[in-house]
């Protein structure tokens, strides 16, 4: 098989690059070894956990992808990301040129940039003060902790009431406690949401807010907004333990949009090796398809969890191309013994040119680019920049190609 561009990795970065390239008229393929980090999404994307994310670019390490792109181009790509999602049928909330706040499952507020349609984005912290909140869970669902949520909100001056719904539609699912999971509930809720909305309505006293777990709208993305239309209060959908229902739906929507543009998505396949020479990648070998050739390649394989980056006792390495990896010498310097401090090893990843061409022994591949969390130089957990880096670097690479 031959393509213009072969994208290795089917997560947020790979799909974004694929969509942008298909829109440019390139013939692309995405190979995805299993599902991706969207399945663990909070429903919110972070650009940079700073009040003014663009102003803060100047303070970042020079290796950080945003420092390489520069604040001006970052603005352009940030706006383009929202437009790309809209064309894929996903209307993200938020102004791409600024930050807002999202409500966490702990009842705290965290900075967020753009959010999936059912996830509210607040302009400031004051927006959460002084509300009367009805928190509703489904009987037997353990991955949504109402007490944490109530405690967090009460600290912010809200008063909370917690109620639990018992629905006959859920009784079948409850026979199997280990499968009482967000996605399985969401499958039932694609049809049973009407009942939930009705029950919530009748439970409502003088509350102006209702909080429900994110278990609505798996196949039918309109379910959360239909619930909102039914319930006479502001309805918020707050994150659950994984898998993430909004994240999984988003993955399906992006994949469908990509395929509708003519892209080839190879699910459950894996690149085993690559043929390289004279600073170029010629082809890759996948487990299911065999040799796949392309003019350009994008490495969007993710970080440790997705095996885009791996380590042995003494080194952090990139397994596919043996690309250069930004890292500190000596295992002792990889981590801080205080678990909650920023961890150095989380910033390790592939070294590239300023235009994201992958380096090997200091020499860039002419036709291999990196995008997303495989890139080195960003402590995405501490900086809250994981999704932003995925979207922005994918768009930047797609523009270069």
């Amino acid at each position, binding site marked *: 098989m031959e393509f213009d561009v072969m994208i290795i990795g089917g997560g947020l970065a790979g799909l974004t690059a694929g969509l942008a390239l298909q829109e440019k008229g390139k013939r692309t393929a995405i190979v995805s070894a299993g599902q991706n980090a969207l399945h663990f999404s909070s429903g919110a994307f972070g650009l940079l956990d700073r009040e003014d994310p663009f102003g803060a670019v100047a303070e970042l390490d020079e290796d950080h992808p945003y420092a390489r792109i520069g604040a001006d181009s970052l603005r352009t790509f940030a706006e383009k990301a929202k437009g790309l999602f809209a064309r894929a049928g996903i209307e993200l909330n938020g102004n791409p040129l600024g930050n807002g706040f999202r409500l966490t499952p702990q009842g705290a507020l965290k900075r967020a940039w753009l959010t999936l349609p059912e996830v509210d984005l607040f302009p400031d912290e004051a927006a959460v003060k002084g509300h009367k909140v009805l928190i509703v869970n489904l009987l037997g669902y353990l991955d949504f902790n109402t007490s944490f949520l109530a405690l967090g909100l009460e600290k912010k001056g809200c008063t909370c009431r917690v109620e639990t719904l018992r629905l006959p539609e859920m009784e079948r699912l409850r026979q199997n406690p*280990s499968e009482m999971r967000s996605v399985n509930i969401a499958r039932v809720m694609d049809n049973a949401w009407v009942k939930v909305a009705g029950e919530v309505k009748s439970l409502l006293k003088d509350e102006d807010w209702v909080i429900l777990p994110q278990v609505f709208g798996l196949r039918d993305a309109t379910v959360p907004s239909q619930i909102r239309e039914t319930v006479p209060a502001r309805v918020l959908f707050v994150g659950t333990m994984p898998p993430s229902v909004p994240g999984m739906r988003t993955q399906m929507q992006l994949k469908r949009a990509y395929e509708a543009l003519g892209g080839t998505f190879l699910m459950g396949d894996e690149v085993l090796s690559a043929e390289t020479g004279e600073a170029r990648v010629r082809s890759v070998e996948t487990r299911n398809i065999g040799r796949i050739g392309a003019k350009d390649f994008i490495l969007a394989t993710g970080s440790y969890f997705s095996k885009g980056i791996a380590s042995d006792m003494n080194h952090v390495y990139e397994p596919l191309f043996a690309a250069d990896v930004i890292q500190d010498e000596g295992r002792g310097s990889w981590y801080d013994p205080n678990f909650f401090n920023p961890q150095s090893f989380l910033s390790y990843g592939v070294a590239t040119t300023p235009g994201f061409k992958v380096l090997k022994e200091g020499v860039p591949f002419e036709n291999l680019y990196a995008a997303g969390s495989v890139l080195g130089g960003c402590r995405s957990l501490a900086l809250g920049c994981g999704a932003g880096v995925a979207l922005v670097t994918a768009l930047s690479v797609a523009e270069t190609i």
Partner: protein
Amino acid sequence: MTLQEYTSSSHNFEECMKCTVCTAYCPVVPANPKYPGPKQAGPDGERLRLKDPFFFEETLKYCLNCKRCEVACPSGVKVADIIQAARIRYSKSKPKLRDRILASTDFMGTLARPFAPVVNGMTGLGATKAVLDATFAIDKHRTFPKYAFKGFESWFRKEAPDQSRFPEQVAYFHGCYVNYNFPQLGKDFVKVMNAAGIGVSLLDKEKCCGVAMISNGMIDGAKKHAAHNVAVLGKAVESGKKILTTSSTCTFTMRDEYPELLGIDNGKVRDSITLATRYLYEKIVAGEVKLPFKKDFHAKIAYHTPCHMEKLGWGVFSIGLLKMIPGIELTVLDSNCCGIAGTYGFKKENYEVSQAIGKPLFDQIARVAPDYVACDCETCKWQIEMSTGLEVRNPISVLAEALDI
């Protein structure tokens, strides 16, 4: 025994990070609450079973072995292999007579075919269906695939001498379905291959790939079939031939289930076994084959990717090949198990679950309203035909009809 032997298992068991993505893609979980789910039945349960086989649960039989958990797993854990291997190793339940009948596809085919008109007439009768339902627990809604009076192998015997005129030769593993039930697919295959300038021969007496035996716990029988098939496939490979098939499940079973579940080494033949659609697609793309198509062909087709085709990752080839036919309006259906899973859906106790699993697929087919459905799997064909009333054709048969010869 060392500690390592106690605590390790095959099929990438230790790579599981407990992320639950497998569970989100399991078609059984939402339909059958008795099934513990792939994570619990697979890596989680395996950890306990390694300590004590007492922890084995017979509810693992509800696994369809569709492999969707493996396709979804971000960590490369062979979840379904862990579950099936546990059934093979620990299950105490013996296959019932009903299971043996359903699983012995070539034995039953040999018995039934000479009496095809009588057998077909009888299995189609409401009274027979009621008896099968009551005595054998084979669900009365199911229609048995019809047996062909004249099998594919005997039809091919007359064709065989003519095949030597082609310089390029392939061997065809037709499978039980083509031989006993639907020789037309085999005839279509020969027509298409000949049109591509390729001659066909059969293997030296193939046996059923064994997939139905594996899922019904008849492991000794499955191993015998696998060993026999690897030997006869080996002879064809030694003579320089590729082995082509028209069934995604037979292909998957011989390539991957033989070594992973049955412990049968197929290393010498594995890479030579391929689906006819893949073989043709690659030949056409490489410019080695050009097929003559009718100018006035038209069909509105919906393509369904069978679960084992998803696992093989070869849907792109069948879809790509169908797209090459001028006059085809093709919709690729969403990835969704049809619910039959071979013999699973034939069993009375599974009927409702089977139909519930397939419902989103049937609903989508109804919305698309194609002339017919295309699919590379014979059991998906029965399920979709029964549940939608539409005909299902193998892509090779679609190709055969579109050829201008």
